[in-house]
């Protein structure tokens, strides 16, 4: 990025901040210059506030698509070098159009908000939930081993299905979601687009096989059984035993674990 060349003196009168202030106020974040605050400090707070709302979805208060992208890009870097397991879930409300058509758009918005809150409650603080578009959400789960991922996705699906969402004094609606998920490719740097595309394929699978279900793109598992591992690491066990024996100068153990008698030649 090119270095900014602002003059050290900022004259707030010269800046058109009204639109920015209005935007922030609208988002319940009224930012006033404090009595002793420098123009730079104030401007910084305005910018921070704008950055924050630029990553948020106004209807649900969740992160938006832009936020998703930056999190995905950051995760790809980490996963590529560490092999950590990160899962991306795409969630889509089933038959959302018919909710809108039957109960009106306001009801639709209420359903979106209720599901958004529910999703946010279903995950850990380190996870991220965003509204990806219309009736589609995304969840990013760092540190998420394969078995755990399926369990979380299943739990989210069931919790949403069990919601009874009031859309008018007399009417509660129930909605289900379909979930598709894909893990970040381990040890490979990829792109956010490719990752989303893989999760999207799974979402399509979930939709086309009847909705209200979870489909995950399994990481190509390097399946090695416990038995195989046992034999694979046999040499380490032996080596360690030898090392400990040598260090402690103890007599080697016999098969029953009793110290064998040392015989002086």
């Amino acid at each position, binding site marked *: 990025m090119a270095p900014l060349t602002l003059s050290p003196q900022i004259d707030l009168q010269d800046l058109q901040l009204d639109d920015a202030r209005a935007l922030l106020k609208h988002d319940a974040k009224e930012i006033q210059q404090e009595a002793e605050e420098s123009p730079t400090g104030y401007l910084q707070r305005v910018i921070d506030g704008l950055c924050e709302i630029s990553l948020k979805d106004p209807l649900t208060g969740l992160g938006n698509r832009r936020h998703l992208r930056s999190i995905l890009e950051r995760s790809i870097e980490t996963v590529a070098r560490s092999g950590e397991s990160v899962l991306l879930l795409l969630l889509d409300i089933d038959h959302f159009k018919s909710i809108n058509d039957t109960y009106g758009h306001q009801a639709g918005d209420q359903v979106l908000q209720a599901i958004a809150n529910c999703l946010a409650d279903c995950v850990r603080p380190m996870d991220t939930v965003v509204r990806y578009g219309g009736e589609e959400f995304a969840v990013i789960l760092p540190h998420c081993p394969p078995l755990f991922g399926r369990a979380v996705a299943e739990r989210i699906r069931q919790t949403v299905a069990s919601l009874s969402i009031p859309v008018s004094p007399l009417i509660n609606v129930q909605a289900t979601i379909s979930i598709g998920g894909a893990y970040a490719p381990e*040890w*490979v740097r990829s792109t956010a687009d490719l990752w989303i595309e893989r999760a999207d394929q799974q979402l399509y699978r979930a939709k086309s096989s009847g909705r209200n279900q979870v489909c995950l793109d*399994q990481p190509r*598992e*390097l399946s090695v059984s416990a038995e195989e591992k046992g*034999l694979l690491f046999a040499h380490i066990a032996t080596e360690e035993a030898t090392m400990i024996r040598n260090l402690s100068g103890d007599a080697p153990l016999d098969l029953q674990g009793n110290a064998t008698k040392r015989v002086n030649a």
Partner: protein
Amino acid sequence: MNDVMSPTAGHPSTAKLPLKPLGKVIAVTSGKGGVGKTFVSANLAAALAKRGHKVLVLDADLGLANLDVVLNLYPKTTLHDVFTGKAKLEDAILPAPGGFSVLLAGSGMVEYSRLTPEVRDEFLRIISSLVPHYDVVLLDTGAGISDVVLFAVSLASEVLMVATPEPTSLTDAYATIKVLVGQQQRQIVRVVVNQASRPGSGLTITNQLQQVLDRFVVTEPDRPIRLIHMGDIPVDPEVRQAIMRRQLLMQTTPGCPAGVAISQLARKLEESVIPKPA
């Protein structure tokens, strides 16, 4: 879930492999990342070059290419430009400090880390047109069993599996070998144990891997898997030093323990795979 061992259950893109792996192409690969593939590829190339071979190293790690960093080369023209049709193959090949040639991936290659038919064809075309011009082509591949890695390995006549004694590295190396046997009907995999803790420990590890393979991996009776231990490379502070200085170990301190081990590896490859230069 796909059963990786069943030849029919493989990924569709591995179903149509090139008819026959190309001679003189050696894939340097590993199960786990960061075990020293790039370090071994670059320095082995230098060692082979010193012995009179004409060597090319191709950065086949499309996802996490870092050969450029190890060689301290940042060319304008890379494999990426060849893939996108912006440059001719011969313009992307450049001389590396150790007396060999390199073809670097370039950062844009990430887009090609998904193995589409076009990527396969282009890859195959590039490697086939390189082979006639060199005594040895080393492929510095990515780790693990991604489509691109498996495809790159399938093009090679020899596989050099780099593993460290760490349990995670061993498990992944073992799993990768299983896939190579199951999908590509590999019979011989050559093993280099890098960062060996003491002399001789590498051979124990290769033997151990062989035992587990014999016991758990079912192959046709006349096609057993054979691991060939190609040597140990000890942990050596000079390796890090060289990388930090962005120089090749084989140029700065070829006499250090890791350097000597690499020279031995070159000699051993010459005995078994690469014909002595005329």
